[in-house]
């Protein structure tokens, strides 16, 4: 290249500073491609001499290269870091491996089952390099380069038998191809939705060709071909049956794993049922298999493009994998059940997402991606209902039911000066701003539990900003229709009311997930349940505030004799009554628990905060726990002092008064719960979620009852000790500890959100 340029330069006779651009755009463009002449010079001596001149600790480095990055460099020749290091006796197994060597059909069953187990381990979050790719058979089918399907074969070695056995060259090959394509489909599905790489799932393929250009059907054809070949083999019936079931399982999996499309939702319930059916048969025939651990080796990592240190091969077995496989199929069937809910309301959608995510154990990343896909693909529910209409319906049903501002005819007005034209524009603009964060709510619910809590915390301030936007939009709407605003009471802000509701709910969730994930220390429980009670009570009040306006509207429609609109408003009110009961129950129960924890604290049954700890002042603790909520405008958060005052019991407080308060709170929670429980599915927005709804109610009820039992035990203890007020405990802590102790803050809970302390009597 260099000589070319010089000649060009000479030819023009002028100095051309930008030679390369001339070169590219000029005369030589049409000339044949000349490969770059690369010269390589040995600089071993110069380099080592120069580096010897450096002082101890002196580095010569690129200015843009940081030492922080340097820490991430893999050290060559270090067995823990360098996956390419030779270990001759172990590597021989990989290098000399002959995929076509004969084996017993029973051993093939064993290999297939091991592969299926690895597939599940991968789904669980391990890398392919420590699971499926450790199979030497998989290793010999995989390369980084594209090849047509018929060229993806077990390569012939000098040790290979003259005529490779069709069980290997066809049956095992087809099975492995099925795995590769399944992995590809799973990666496609997961990466098209929201997930956390490495935390949830590892999509890394180490640049191996995963049959990306091949359709699922083509691989299914290979599998069917293998089934025909298998049928022609002379084998004992049970072994043949076992191999057949494994091939069929792969066929069903490939059908079920076909990535979701943006335009049309295919109901995969039956496909996953077929998978379940096959799984059972595979499980029944598993004992026929013989393990061949020598055909799996983590040393294949030496051949994988990877900037990670070597990782150990996972130990797993079919016994572990089978229940997981079943869960995968069941979770997917459950996800597709969403389609059976006819015309779900927006709150119903969120409810379904919660119930799906609450399944125990939590559905795998793949299943959660499928659920996300069904809800969000193409910005539509089930590729049908646009998210924007979902948002509009949510606003309507919550705070704008029967509001003439939402009359569809407003959107048909074309006169730019008409107030109806303007109002519909304002609402459209607000919805455009709100859509992303609104749809993010169900999306967050489908993440792993820790991320859920984190993103809810982050979402609080975003929703607060949205509430401010909503207030502006509401004010503009008021200025357009001053008459409507002239109500006897203060002006209603329907869009802001909608945003406020969601913000409060997300705040509650973020706190409750904190309890579920054991984020808080025992001493903090009283404090945080008090705060949860505050947020839930605020939501209950807010809902009643909305209800008041809806009530006025309903009366107006009744007066006008507009029964249809009156009914519409009434049904919104019923839903709001349900939500209010729910918020009230949470508020009352949280307050009861806060008092209970305060009581335990005053009895010295919970470890006291270390007063000598300089970095743990109440102000700092308050700031830490309130951090996600501090930036918000409404509600005004209680100050550190307020919280302290309401959490710590004063020395004069009498135990009888505290216990009476807790009991009445628990009773109020139960009353609210029964109102909540008796609401029908359509009003409560839990259609299609009846089972989970019942479980939830029972979980909360169980937690309330358990709390009641703890309270009566403590009451008995206090009476036995003869304590009247909190100050009486001073100096007599040991007496209490001899009678009762707090075991744990609810290891096994009736409901994850409610951490009821487990208190037991001490038996001497």
């Amino acid at each position: 290249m260099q000589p070319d340029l010089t000649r060009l330069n000479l030819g023009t006779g002028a100095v051309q500073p930008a030679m390369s651009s001339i070169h590219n755009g000029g005369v030589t463009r049409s000339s044949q491609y000349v490969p770059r002449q690369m010269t390589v010079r040995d600089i071993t001596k110069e380099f080592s001499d120069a580096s010897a001149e450096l002082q101890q600790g002196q580095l010569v480095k690129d200015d843009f290269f940081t030492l922080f990055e340097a820490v991430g460099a893999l050290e060559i020749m270090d067995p823990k870091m360098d996956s390419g290091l030779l270990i001759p006796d172990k590597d021989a197994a990989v290098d000399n491996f002959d995929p076509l060597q004969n084996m017993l059909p029973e051993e093939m069953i064993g290999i297939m089952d091991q592969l299926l187990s690895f597939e599940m381990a991968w789904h669980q979050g391990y890398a392919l390099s420590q699971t499926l790719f450790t199979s030497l058979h998989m290793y010999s089918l995989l390369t980084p380069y594209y090849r047509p399907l018929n060229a993806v074969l077990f390569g012939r070695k000098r040790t290979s038998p003259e005529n490779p056995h069709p069980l290997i060259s066809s049956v095992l090959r087809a099975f492995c191809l099925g795995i590769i394509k399944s992995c590809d489909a799973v990666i496609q599905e997961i990466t098209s939705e929201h997930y956390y790489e490495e935390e949830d799932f590892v999509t890394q393929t180490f640049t191996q060709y995963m049959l990306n250009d091949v359709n699922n059907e083509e691989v299914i054809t290979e599998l069917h071909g293998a089934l025909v070949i298998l049928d022609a083999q002379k084998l004992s019936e049970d072994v043949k049956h076992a191999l057949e079931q494994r091939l069929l399982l792969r066929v069903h999996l490939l059908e079920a794993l076909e990535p979701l499309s943006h335009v049309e939702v295919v109901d995969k319930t039956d496909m996953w049922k077929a998978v379940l059916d096959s799984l059972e048969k595979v499980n029944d025939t598993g004992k026929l298999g013989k393990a061949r651990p020598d055909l799996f080796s983590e040393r294949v990592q030496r051949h994988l493009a990877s900037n990670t240190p070597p990782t150990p091969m996972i130990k797993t077995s079919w016994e572990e994998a089978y229940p997981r496989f079943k869960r995968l199929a069941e979770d997917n069937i459950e996800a597709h059940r969403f389609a059976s809910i006819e015309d779900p309301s927006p709150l119903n959608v969120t409810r379904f997402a919660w119930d799906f995510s609450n399944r125990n154990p939590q559905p795998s990343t793949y299943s959660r991606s499928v659920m996300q896909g069904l809800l969000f693909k193409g910005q539509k529910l089930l590729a049908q209902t646009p998210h924007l209409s979902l948002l509009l319906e949510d606003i309507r049903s919550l705070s704008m039911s029967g509001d003439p501002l939402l009359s569809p005819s407003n959107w048909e007005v074309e006169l730019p000066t008409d107030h109806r034209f303007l109002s519909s524009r304002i609402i459209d603009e607000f919805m455009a701003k709100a859509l992303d964060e609104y749809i993010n709510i169900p999306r967050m619910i489908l993440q792993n539990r820790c991320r859920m809590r984190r993103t809810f915390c982050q979402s609080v301030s975003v929703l607060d900003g949205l509430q401010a936007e909503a207030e502006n939009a509401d004010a503009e709407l008021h200025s357009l229709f001053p008459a409507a605003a002239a109500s006897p009471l203060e002006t209603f802000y329907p869009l802001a009311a909608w945003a406020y509701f969601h913000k409060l709910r997300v705040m509650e969730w973020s706190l409750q997930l904190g309890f579920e994930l054991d984020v808080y220390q025992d001493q903090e429980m009283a404090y945080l349940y008090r705060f949860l009670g505050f947020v839930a009570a605020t939501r209950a009040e807010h809902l009643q505030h909305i209800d008041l306006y809806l009530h006025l509207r309903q009366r107006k429609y009744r007066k006008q004799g507009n029964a249809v609109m009156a009914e519409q408003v009434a049904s919104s009110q019923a839903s709001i009554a349900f939500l209010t009961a729910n918020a009230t129950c949470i508020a009352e129960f949280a307050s009861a628990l806060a008092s209970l924890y305060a009581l335990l604290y005053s009895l010295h049954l919970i470890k006291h905060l270390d007063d000598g700890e300089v970095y743990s002042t109440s102000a700092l603790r308050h700031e830490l726990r309130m951090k996600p909520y501090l930036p918000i405008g409404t509600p005004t958060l209680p100050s550190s002092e307020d919280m302290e005052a309401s959490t710590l019991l004063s020395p004069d407080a009498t135990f009888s008064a505290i216990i009476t308060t807790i009991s009445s709170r628990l009773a109020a929670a139960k009353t609210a719960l029964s109102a909540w429980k008796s609401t029908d599915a359509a009003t409560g927005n839990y259609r299609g979620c009846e089972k989970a709804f019942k479980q939830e109610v029972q979980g909360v009820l169980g937690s309330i009852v358990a709390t009641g039992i703890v309270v009566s035990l403590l009451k008995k203890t206090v009476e036995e000790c003869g304590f009247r007020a909190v100050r009486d405990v001073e100096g007599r802590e040991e007496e209490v500890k001899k009678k009762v102790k707090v075991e744990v803050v609810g290891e096994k809970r009736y409901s994850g959100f409610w951490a009821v302390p487990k208190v037991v009597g001490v038996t001497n």
Partner: protein
Amino acid sequence: METSNTEAVEYLHHLLNKTLRIHTSDSRIFVGTMKCTDRELNIILSLTHEYRQPSPSTIADAAYAQQLSGSTENLKVDMVKRFVGLVVVPGKHIRKIEVEE
């Protein structure tokens, strides 16, 4: 002493961000962009590819395949190449350093 240090630094500096080929004691070759070095001749390369001699069994298999096909040409087996990213090659394992120009 002082001047030779300055010269050494200058020399090594001009090699920064050039493509180096480092041969290691286990006969692998690492080809990557030089980012950093020190007195012990430890070298950090980024965007590195590892090249390895094919294993004896691979060569034997290739020879066998060639024999089956009846070809009499010289046997040619490619080196095995893979991407390994950011690596540090310790000085004590370095046998040869080359620069691509």
